[in-house]
């Protein structure tokens, strides 16, 4: 491959994801019946909405050059809190879950910006703490959701033919993209990741912006937890394991640099769909009966996929670095 300019690399990674996504969808359409049927499409969207929300928060954090390992446990905590509040109605359940997420995000923000602890360790700690809190609140078991209050509409309902969770995620992504491109806050997020020192020297509120991304990530994870509880009918304190890594993988596959400073909301969504589709395709493939791959294969395939994308990215970046 010839040397490419840095923007070209990013364009390629971003468009690469889209191309891969389109290719995967085309493959599924050609090979399986009902792949693009409304039932499948809506199920996929409904199921992956929660991961999409978590990945969005993670994308913002990664763009500032940080990382948030607590998103999975935060989602679990959010699911428990919202399940506990669900008997009181949709709104209490929703707000409760999000508030729980924001609380975790606040702890992250403070520990990272005030105590100056590396995001990796700080969010590792909050991951444990959030998990512990979720277990304590739930009494070490899942918490059933109340079906009378209409809370489950948030996860199982439809609006204008589309699943409610998908609407929520779509709204979040549109807002997220607008914020990233058209607000000073969004541009500062990218600046902080690119060169935090310079950003501070420029007089921009680097600390506050960084803190806000952790708050956002926490809130979105809490929201994901609400959807989890509403969709599956119970708040689950041990759910969420591995979510953070799925989110990181989606963000990276989407072309955002782990070191920060570069990223896009749209490509993160593409990354989520790409990784999510693998599971879907595996099910279909099994259904065809030609091969019988257990669900365990999806982890292997996801890992391999991540590897492929990252290897290509690394190759491209190495070439440009050498050439510049």
């Amino acid at each position, binding site marked *: 491959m010839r040397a490419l*300019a*840095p*923007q070209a690399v990013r364009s390629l990674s971003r468009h690469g994801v889209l191309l891969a996504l389109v290719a995967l969808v085309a493959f599924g359409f050609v090979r399986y019946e009902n792949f693009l049927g409304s039932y499948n499409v809506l199920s996929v969207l409904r199921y992956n909405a929660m991961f999409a929300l978590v990945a969005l928060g993670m994308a913002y954090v990664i763009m500032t050059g940080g990382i948030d390992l607590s998103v999975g446990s935060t989602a679990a905590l959010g699911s428990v809190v919202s399940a506990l509040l669900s008997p009181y109605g949709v709104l209490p359940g929703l707000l409760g879950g999000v508030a729980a997420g924001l609380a975790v995000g606040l702890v992250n923000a403070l520990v990272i910006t005030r105590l100056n602890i590396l995001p990796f360790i700080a969010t590792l700690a909050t991951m444990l703490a959030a998990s512990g809190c979720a277990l304590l609140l739930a009494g070490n078991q899942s918490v059933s959701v109340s079906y009378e209050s209409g809370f489950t509409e948030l996860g199982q309902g439809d609006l204008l033919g589309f699943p409610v969770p998908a609407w929520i995620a779509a709204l979040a992504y549109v807002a997220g993209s*607008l914020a990233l*491109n*058209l*607000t*000073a806050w969004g*541009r*500062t997020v*990218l*600046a902080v990741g*690119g*060169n935090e*020192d*310079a*950003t*501070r*020297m*420029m*007089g*921009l*509120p680097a600390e506050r912006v960084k803190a806000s991304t952790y708050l956002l990530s926490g809130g979105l994870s809490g929201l994901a937890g609400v959807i989890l509880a509403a969709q599956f009918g119970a708040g689950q304190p041990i759910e969420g394991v591995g979510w953070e890594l799925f989110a990181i993988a989606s963000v990276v596959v989407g072309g955002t640099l782990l070191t920060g*400073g*570069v990223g896009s909301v749209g490509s993160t969504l593409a990354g989520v769909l790409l990784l999510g589709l693998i599971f879907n395709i595996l099910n279909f493939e099994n259904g065809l009966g030609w091969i019988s791959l257990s669900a365990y294969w999806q982890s292997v395939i996801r890992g391999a996929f991540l590897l492929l994308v990252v290897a290509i990215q690394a190759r491209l970046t190495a070439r440009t670095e*050498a*050439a510049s």
Partner: protein
Amino acid sequence: MSTPLLSMRGIDKRFAGVPALLAASLEVGRGEVHALIGQNGAGKSTLIKILTGYYTRDAGEILFDGAPVSFATPAAAQAAGISTIYQEINLVPYRSVTENICLGRESRRFGLLDWRAMHREAETLLARFNVHVDVRRPVMTYSTAVQQMVAIARAIGFKAKLVIMDEPTSSLDEQEVGVLFDVIRQLKAAGVSVIFVSHKLDELYVVCDAVTIMRDGRTVRVAPMSEVSKLDLVTTMLGRRLEATEHRTAAAAASGRGDQDGALLRVRDLAAGRKVREVSLDVRPGEIVGLAGLLGSGRTETARVIFGADQGESGTVALSGSSGTIKEPAEAIRSGMGFLSEDRKLEGIVPAMSVRENLTLALMPHLARRGIVDEARSREIVDRFIQRLGIKCAGPEQRIRELSGGNQQKVLLARWLCMNPRLLILDEPTRGIDVGAKAEILNLVRELADQGLGVLMISSELEEVIEAASRIFVLRDGRTVADLQGDAIGEPAIMAAMAHGHRERAEEAMNG
């Protein structure tokens, strides 16, 4: 006489009990270009950082534009009209030129960013300096000179009353320096004051009105530029009379260097990447060969290929007594080479390790028996070199990052010397080092050359190269354009080669 724009008086600052500033002062008039000079450690950057809100002072007062101020953050200083252009261009690399100029002062439409207006503003600001670039592209795709203009444009956009420039010309070529000075004159004409911090004394006379000299944390002299001579500046900075440095004529240096034909290192038509196109040079044992050229001419890149840190694409690098291409620094070291890189912080010292561990880093495999380090031998070697090079440290176990720049450089030099190399490549060996240590290092290098060591020295300070080297190759845009020996060595010849290139003469010299 109007009141000065800036008045800093009686400033004290201590770091962990160690005083950095003692009743320091600085006064800058309106529309004045004011130089601030001093050795490394004199307190210049600390004073600036206190002014711009990066540090807080322990005592003293600051008056800016008539009012007492105390900036708690860089943002506050910027808002008040003080902008700083740092030596390591502090811009956000992946972000566009526009963002780097406008962030913090964005134009908005309906609450959202108005990109069109911002792009236009960025273009207008840069046009004042005759810089026309695509403001949408990431700022890192442009040269250091353009980046500096972007930084200045930002300052102006923020309606700065005072612009502080910290070593602004260290990465610029002559033409770019000229453009910068024009910009400074423009600023002055517009009533903006400039604080100009620099090591390069010649430049001060071109563009500055007055100078403040600092030493050991104090302000020792303030005077108009016209009333001090260069020698005055140096003696005030050092606080002592400067002995005339040993000046060997080029002729004397070139004579009696033993075997004229036996080349130690022979590089022919080397090409690698974009920076190295067609480089040829020779180094003979006992010879100090200078490699001169403007910034970006490919000198460091050439050195890295010779040392195996980067791969060459075509051409040959032949080290006498060893065959085969060198693909890794480890191989180069085994063949008897050493390489003191340009940026000791980035590529030289291992900060958390001790002086001893840094010194023996390359030597380690030789100090070990079956993988286990022989501590006694390593201690003995380290003590020997500390003494020999006069390295000032609290002991071999002191962490190297606590040493001054000059002493760190000596440790790095010792790292190679204890390997007994045949060929030593030095890349800007005296950069960022005070005058005293500079002379020590150069004298040491000369001593070693006398004992048979071949030296390839890259330096941007022409005076230094001319003094030390008996042969100078000049690179321009990745090609060898001149090979100067003996009487031919001199500033005019080198500068002419850098400016115009004399390929024919260089070719003759190589093949003759």
